[in-house]
């Protein structure tokens, strides 16, 4: 079981619209992703990265093809099943932090921890992402990078099998972006999480175990990186 790939995509396609205006966001994608890796999806805007992540995260159903994540065939799940799958298996980090403004950093993390029977300790998780001192602040009193680290802690606290991050540095400046990536890299490696990160910034690929290039809804190339760079070494 532990040798089987974490994610198996088999002829996955996603078409938006029909006829003349149909957009093939994903076009017959076949892909295996092993466990425990830091995987980066990269490609130009509109290449289907977000769509692919949404399919894997159970936010969206493909038009055709099979998606198996951690042994679960997502196509066999109904709405409730998908909700349970997301709750138990996946942690999300989005470009927009989407913190609840009327809850403190700690409470934002606890909000998600409440969902699962055996979460990590919310305080410790915040300490891990370097926010031990600010955990009682409301989001409006946190910088963008700090907010995104709260969002990361919120994704990790559930002990998900899989962390999905869609352009997590998209709203951040360089320094802050690096700091967030580095925390993300270190913490997930330490905890043995698998991470799927989407970006249009090819510099970030240097820190990945595996880089998957998307172009026009197809997998253009898969690179395996034997010696990933540390986040601090990145430049953009």
């Amino acid at each position, binding site marked *: 079981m532990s040798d089987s790939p974490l994610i198996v995509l088999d002829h996955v396609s996603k078409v938006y619209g029909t006829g003349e205006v149909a957009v093939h966001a994903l076009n017959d994608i076949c892909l295996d992703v092993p466990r425990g890796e830091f995987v980066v999806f990269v490609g130009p805007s509109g290449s289907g990265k977000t769509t692919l992540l949404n399919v894997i995260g159970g936010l969206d159903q493909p038009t055709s093809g099979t998606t198996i994540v951690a042994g679960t065939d997502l196509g066999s799940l109904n709405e409730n099943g998908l*909700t*349970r799958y*997301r709750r138990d298996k996946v942690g999300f980090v989005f470009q927009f932090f989407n913190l*609840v403004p*009327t809850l403190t950093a700690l409470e934002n993390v606890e909000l998600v921890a*409440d969902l699962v029977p055996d979460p990590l300790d919310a305080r410790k998780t915040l300490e891990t992402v370097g926010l031990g001192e600010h955990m009682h602040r409301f989001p409006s009193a946190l910088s963008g990078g700090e907010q995104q680290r709260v969002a990361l802690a919120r994704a990790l606290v559930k002990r998900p099998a899989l962390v999905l991050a869609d352009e997590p540095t998209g709203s951040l400046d360089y320094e802050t972006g690096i700091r967030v990536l580095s925390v993300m890299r270190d913490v997930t490696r330490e905890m043995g999480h698998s991470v799927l990160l989407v970006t249009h910034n090819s510099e970030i690929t240097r820190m990945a175990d595996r880089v998957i290039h998307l172009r026009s809804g197809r997998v253009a190339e898969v690179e395996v990186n034997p010696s990933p760079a540390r986040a601090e070494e990145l430049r953009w």
Partner: protein
Amino acid sequence: MSRLNLKLLRDLAHARWQFLAITFVTALGVAMYHGSMVSYETQRASYELSYERLAFGDAWIPVRRAPRAVVRQIERMPNVVAVEGRTSEIVEIEQEKPRRPRVIGRIISLPSGREPAVNRLRIIEGSPLGSRSRRELLLEQAFARANNYRPGDRIYPRFAGRRVRFRVAGIVSSAEFIYPVMGNVFSLPMPELFGAMFADEQVLGPLIGLSGQITEVCLRTRPGSEASVAAAVKRRLKPYGAEEPILRAEQASNKLLQSDLEGNKPFLVIMPALFLGSAALSVALMLARWVQAQRGIVGFLRASGFPARAILFHYLGAGAAIGVAGGIAGIGMGHLIGMWFAAAYERVIRTPFAAPQNRPDLAVTAFALAMVACLLGGWLPARSAARIVPAEAMRGMAASQPRALARIRLPLFLAIAVRNMLRRPMRTLGTASGVASAVSLMIIAGTFRDSMMQAISEAMDDFQRYDITVAFVPERSANIVTAMNAWPGVRLAEGTLDIPVRAKHNGREKDTVAMGFARGTKLRVLRDMSGASIVPEPGQALYSNVLAKRILTEPGDTVRLDYSQNIRGRSASAVMKVGPRLRLMVALPIYMEMEDLRRRFARKLQMPPDAVTGAVIAVEPGYERIVTSRLHRTDGVGLALSRADVTRQIDEVTAFANTFIAFMYLLGSAMAFAIVYTVTDIVLWERTRELATLRTLGYGMGSVLRLVTIENIMMGLLGSALAMYPAYLLARFMLEAANTEGFTMLMVTSPTTYALSVASTLVAVLAAQWPGLRRIRRLDLADAIRTRE
């Protein structure tokens, strides 16, 4: 507490002024409902209790005169529970100074040495009737209160022109006179002028020439058999000149009480509905904004594994919180309102026994209403939140397209305002509806005031061009009026003739009075619905809509009128043609041409050929008191009522209505403010970013103020425009429901009412935008345009 609930509480605390405003509106709705429900139920229960304890009759059968022994026979008839025989006479009453010298009384006999089996009395002061050798009376409390009688005082009824001294033994309350009126025809309570009083039959009999005789049989029957038993008793009493029985439903006091209760019912429904509807709307608007602002968060929550149900309950929870707060506050306030209503009502109506209804089920219903309103209001936004797909967490919202309509060319600021309103038409409509319900409430309250004022001023200044009304006991020849015309200070005196009749049409009937109206009459005016002056033709009967509805006649139908009093043991009836409808404040009388009325009724009843039962008199300025006091010294004058007396009586009756209207106006304005505040504040929250952007572009607060004000005023005007027609319909419906036989209004809404309602709403709008504007001024601009809300 779960973090999601914590978020809810914090969100509510964050929006506390909106929360308070909506809670307030909810509480007002619940309070009105609960308050009027409690007083409605209390009144109903108090009547029931009084009827039960005092063995209130199920039927009354008047007879010309019958030996007291017939009561024994009736007692044995099937389904008869109790019987009492008695005499009941209208007499003139003389009083000591400083009381008004002459009033009218109904003296009813009580059995010697025992309590009556039907229609008992409750002694509230003094003692029951004592020894038969003493001339003692019990006075009905409304009369006693109005004329300041205490046990031991003297009072002087006149029997056959002779004044007899009585001592007041006690003050009583009676189930027959809870609404203290003389009878079905004179339904304005005038306790100062009319009173019921009770004397021992052995004392009374010789004085009225009816020793050992009765003129009325009162019955209690088994439930459901009232009508049949009454009919059987009438047949049994036929040899003694039995008249049509009066069933409990037709008994004057009871009927007025019931019609009052029924008249209040629409208020019970419409006012709370208006408030709770507005509360629901406000909840919907507030939550719609929340959901709008929190789409990303909801998307995230859904992505993290919160089920759609949790999101639905989360936002419904906000509605529920308002429902709970508003419900509890409303029940408390409603309790106070109920007590206040009861106190105001008690000034006119005192029940012998009170049965306050502080029933938990009433409170529970009121609370449930608040919950239903707030949950209904929360339903649509909560459902739309539950439908937000998790992917929303990732994508920005689609910018809404300006509509074609919005591309009209207007001055810039006006254009922005118009486009903003058109951009989200449903939201604009919702907001405007909130404003509209506030405006409606004020228009309705104003319409009631206008209509009442109009009815009174029409009646007092147009229909009645005289200063004094006189009633003769009994009727007289018109000579007496001719004589009055020669009195100093009398400008003009005209005779009046009122004959009690029962109007019948197609199986429906109604006790009322036929009034003679002579061609050439100068002191009274009749008007048709269009306001044109009208005079009854011979053979024609003119009356109001209210009576027409009771007996279901249309102009052109025929109506049968039967003389309905037993005093003279004669009968008279006439079939009349129904003429155009009249516009009347006191809606029950039927007008006939004077000579026609004399020919068809007065002569058959062996009244003098030129009979009058009263007169109306116009006096020279300053002569009102002089003429009135001369009238009081004139034989045959039972009652002389000056314009001031009538005005005072009307004021007393309308005082309650006036307070009620003022109260409604106050609540209406409060609600208007609360709603307008809520919706204005919501609009400003939504626009914060846009307005902050304007400021970064170099527009000053002045420009922002101008923009917001233009838009809000347009919203206020739109709401006002939307309010007009529904307000008209609601006011008409409620006015019709509130119209009773005793007091009828035509619907009038003065321009002032419209102007005042719209103006106060606009003022509320301007005041309500203040907190939002202050927030925008203090806003950190950089922050405002960065936050993606």
